[in-house]
Every structure is written in C-alpha cells, then in structure tokens.
C-alpha cells in the first residue's frame, strides 16, 4: 500500500463534498430541461469549467499517457491537431452554432427536423452504440489507475470497478445536470491544479535531458517525427486531419454547447476552452514519456504484466506512485476521482438522454416530464452496467487512444458529417443521409471486432487496420451522402430548414 492517512483524508473529503452537492441541488430540478440541460442557464465561464472537467477525464490521462509511452514526442501531434480543430470550430462556429440556434437538445434531434424520424432514430442508435463502446473502457482504465496508485493487489480490479460505478451512479441519478455542473466546477479546480503539479514532479524526477535521450535511444527519429513513427505514421495523421473539423463534438461536449445561454456563447466556449486542450493532451503524454524513461532505467520497479506482456497502460500510474510525495499522491488520486466522475457522470447522462430523446420519444412522443426523468435515470443505470461488463471483457487491439479514435470516427464520420451536410448543403436528403449513416456506422466495426481476432487472413489484415478503416470511413461517408442525395433529388426532395428557432435562445 502506497498511501498514508493524509492521502486517505483528502479522498474522503473530496467524496463527501461532491455527493453532498448532488443531494443539495436536487430541489432545483423542476422539469426535464433543468434535469438535462441545467435549464439552459450555463454562462461562458461555468460552461468552460464543466466542459474542461468533462473532457479531461481519468480515461483521457490514461490513454494519452499510454500513447506518450509508446510513441514518444511524436504523440504530441495528436494534441496539436486537436488544438487546430478547436480553433477552427471556435472561429467558425461550425455545426455548433447552427444546432444551438435551432435549440436542439441532442444532435440526433436535428436529423428529425432536417431529414425524417427514421433518420433520427438511426443517427441516435449509431451515436449511442459508438458512445457506449467508447465509454466502455472508462471504468477499467480508471480502476487501473487507482489500483496502481494506491498499491492494491491486481485481484481488487473488478471490485474497484463496481465501487466506482456505484459512486458515479448515485449522484448522476440523484442530481442530474445541475449537480453535474456544480461538481464539475469543483473538480475542474482540483483537476487542473493537480495536472500542472504532477507534470512538474514527473519531469523533474527523471530530468528533461534524460527524457529526450531515452526517446532518441529507443525510438530514434520516429520518437520525434510523427510521420516516421512506427506506431503512428502519415496514415494516422491523415486520419486525424479528416476528423479535425469535428473536434470537441462528441455528444457530451456538444451537450455543454447546447446548454449555454445563446449560440454566441457556444462558439466562444469552444474558442476559449480549446486553448487548454493542447495541455490536456501534452501533459499526460509527457507523464507517459517520463514513465518510459523511468522504466528504461536500471532502478525502476518492475512494470506489471498483462498476458505475459508489459501493461503499457499501467506505466504512468506505477511511475507516479513511486515518485509523488505523500499528500500530493492523495490529492492526485482525488483529482483522478474527480476526473473520472466528471467525465463519467456527463457521459452517462448524455447517452441516456440520447436513448430517451431520440430513440424512445420519437416512438412515444407523449411522455410526461416525470416519466422522461425516470426513464433517463433507469437508462443511466443500464448504461453503467453495460460499461462494467464491456470494460471487463474487451481488450482493444492497439492503444486505448486508438480505440477511442476509431469509435469517435464511427460517430463523427456518420452523424457529424451528415449533420454538417444538412446544415450547409441544401441538396442533402434522407436517402443520402441514411446511406452515409449506415456505411460510416458499420465500417469501424470491422476494426473494433476483427482486428487482432485472427479471423482475417494475414495478407488482408491491413484492410482492417484502424488507420485505413478510419480514412475509408470518412471518404465513403462523404461519397455516399453526395451520390445518393443527387440520385434521389426528385423522389425525395430535401426538406428546407425552417428558421423558426434561429436567433433565439
């Protein structure tokens, strides 16, 4: 056990504070909007706090540090592309401004307005499936971090996963978005401060020159040049660039933009908080590179094994558990819990709202607010149980970040690309959109379920590699929506968006 009483005291204080907020804010939930979107009363800075805390999850720290461990400085290219994406969205308001002006609750709702009810349901199912698979690894990665930081035995992993799930479910189900927003603010402060402090300790322990030398020795030029990297390479960069216009539009982040007081605040939100997204990626990556340097040295503790191979995802927490001073270790674990909870609660609430708003409500439109809240709470519990099972049973073929990227592509190449077409291309219609949704929703499943399974002959394995499938998904989706829309203009004339909600709050 790596912890002393001071570390435990910090964690207990943090947990009491966050669950207390959830119960105290319960009386403020008067209707479905206040449960799900905090009554659309989010102003700029609080919106930034909640988006920053949501998007800097424990899973984010884990997958970025693992990527840094495996790719060295080349992994920084991922953070730079994310920053460029945020600057683009922040400057142009691409997609988010249009959706906010139309007063959408969720992105799939737009499909009902612009295309048809069936398209809305298909888009919602794809979003829901991609999101659940993506979220499926949150618990296992979060539990791994805590396991190695605290110094618990590996057998404790499933119990830790169940414990974390219970904790998040309690205050998400009880409080809804108001408690999520308030706890996000507290978590934002703890989280951002801890990330900066940890970066300082991670670098100074091994020394920056040693870090550069270790990457140079082990990775060569590929440790710095992402185009030469064995792990990444130019195909990977091209894939990320395809997704650049859709940066930060994963539904939980988008729900923050839709919760703001007006469309201009939504746009500003992306512009400002996007500035922190470079650090959000680069700092945990640096922890991973420092861990790599530490484990390459002679005095390191042994790296845990998974199926006989080194567990690269465990490198960062094991490293931090060895180098952080007592007290700070407790603060970092409290911050990690904050990161896990702020992300997990928002994601649970988001996927549940998609299930209720875009799959159930189009089929049963006369549900009362009380029934909708109950249904959302039940689906929060259901999603949580799925995540528990998926995280325990599924292992991604490549790094965790690359799994996140392919599930992200499943959503962005289908749902976001057709949303953009619906907003900015008058000829986009229902058949074109449905064709695009189906092809882009299905293609990534090949890499998710077949890559590494041994089913595909070795000569054809490149075809199901995530980079190839990711690029093919974007290209196929665009081709399908354009070609099918143009071919069916007469039989299915495109709907014209009525500007009734435009300009309103």
């Amino acid at each position, binding site marked *: 056990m790596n912890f002393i009483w001071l570390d435990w005291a910090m964690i207990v204080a943090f947990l009491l504070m966050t669950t207390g907020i959830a119960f105290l804010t319960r009386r403020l939930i*008067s209707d479905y909007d*206040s449960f799900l979107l*905090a009554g659309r009363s989010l102003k700029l800075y609080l919106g930034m706090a909640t988006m920053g805390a949501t998007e800097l999850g424990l899973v984010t720290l884990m997958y970025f540090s693992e990527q840094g461990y495996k790719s060295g400085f080349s992994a920084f290219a991922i953070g730079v592309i994310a920053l460029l994406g945020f600057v683009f969205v922040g400057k142009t308001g691409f997609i988010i401004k249009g959706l906010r002006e139309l007063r959408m609750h969720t992105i799939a709702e737009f499909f009902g307005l612009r295309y048809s009810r069936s398209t809305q349901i298909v888009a919602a199912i794809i979003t829901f499936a991609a999101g659940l698979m993506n979220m499926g690894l949150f618990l296992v990665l979060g539990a791994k971090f805590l396991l190695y930081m605290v110094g618990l035995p590996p057998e404790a992993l499933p119990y830790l996963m169940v414990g974390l799930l219970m904790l998040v479910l309690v205050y998400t189900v009880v409080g809804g978005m108001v408690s999520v927003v*308030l706890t996000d603010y507290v978590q934002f402060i703890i989280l951002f401060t801890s990330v900066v402090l940890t970066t300082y300790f991670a670098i100074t322990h091994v020394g920056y020159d040693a870090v550069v030398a270790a990457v140079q020795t082990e990775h060569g030029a590929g440790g710095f040049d992402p185009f030469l990297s064995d792990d990444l390479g130019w195909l990977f960069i091209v894939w990320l660039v395809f997704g650049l216009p859709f940066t930060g539009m994963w539904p939980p982040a988008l729900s923050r933009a839709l919760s703001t007081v007006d469309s201009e605040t939504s746009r500003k939100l992306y512009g*400002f908080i996007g*500035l922190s997204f470079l650090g959000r*990626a*680069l700092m945990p990556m640096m922890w991973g590179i420092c861990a790599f340097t530490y484990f390459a040295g002679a005095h390191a503790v042994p790296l845990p094994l998974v199926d006989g191979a080194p567990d690269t995802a465990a490198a960062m927490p094991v490293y931090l558990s060895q180098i952080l001073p007592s007290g700070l270790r407790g603060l970092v674990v409290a911050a990690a819990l904050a990161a896990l909870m702020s992300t997990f609660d928002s994601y649970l609430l988001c996927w549940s709202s998609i299930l209720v708003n875009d799959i159930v409500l189009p089929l049963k439109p006369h549900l009362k607010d009380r029934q909708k809240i109950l249904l959302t709470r039940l689906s929060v519990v259901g999603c949580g149980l799925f995540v528990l099972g998926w995280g325990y049973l599924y292992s991604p073929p490549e790094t965790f970040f690359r799994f996140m990227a392919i599930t992200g592509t499943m959503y962005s190449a289908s749902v976001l690309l057709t949303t953009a077409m619906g907003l900015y291309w008058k000829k986009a219609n229902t058949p074109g959109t449905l064709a695009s949704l189906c092809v882009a929703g299905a293609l990534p499943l090949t890499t998710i379920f077949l890559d590494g399974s041994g089913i595909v002959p070795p000569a054809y394995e490149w075809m199901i590699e995530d980079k190839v499938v990711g690029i093919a998904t974007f290209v196929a989706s665009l081709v399908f929506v354009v070609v099918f829309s143009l071919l069916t203009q007469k039989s299915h004339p495109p709907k014209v968006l009525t500007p009734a909600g435009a300009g309103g709050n």
Partner: protein
Amino acid sequence: MMGWQTAWTWIFGIAVFLFFLVEIVVVVGGARDIGDMMRSLTQQASDEGKDG
C-alpha cells in the same frame, strides 16, 4: 530530428502556459456564473411550484 525536438519543447511550454491561464480565468469567472445559475434555477423552481 533536432528541429522536431526543439519544436515539441516549445509547444509543450506553450501548452502548459495556456492550460494554467485557462484555469485561472475559468475559476474566477465560473464563481460568478454559479451565483447567476443558482438564482435562475431557484426562480424557475419557485415559479413551477406556484403554477401547480
């Protein structure tokens, strides 16, 4: 390789600075926004209570 290494070092420094800057701005501005949100939601909840 030296070029990439120098560029990443600078970019990392900028990333840490921007991260810290955003934190300070958000913490100060967010405290004010919380007050506004609570007032708005309390008002909304009390209006709902009066309506029925």
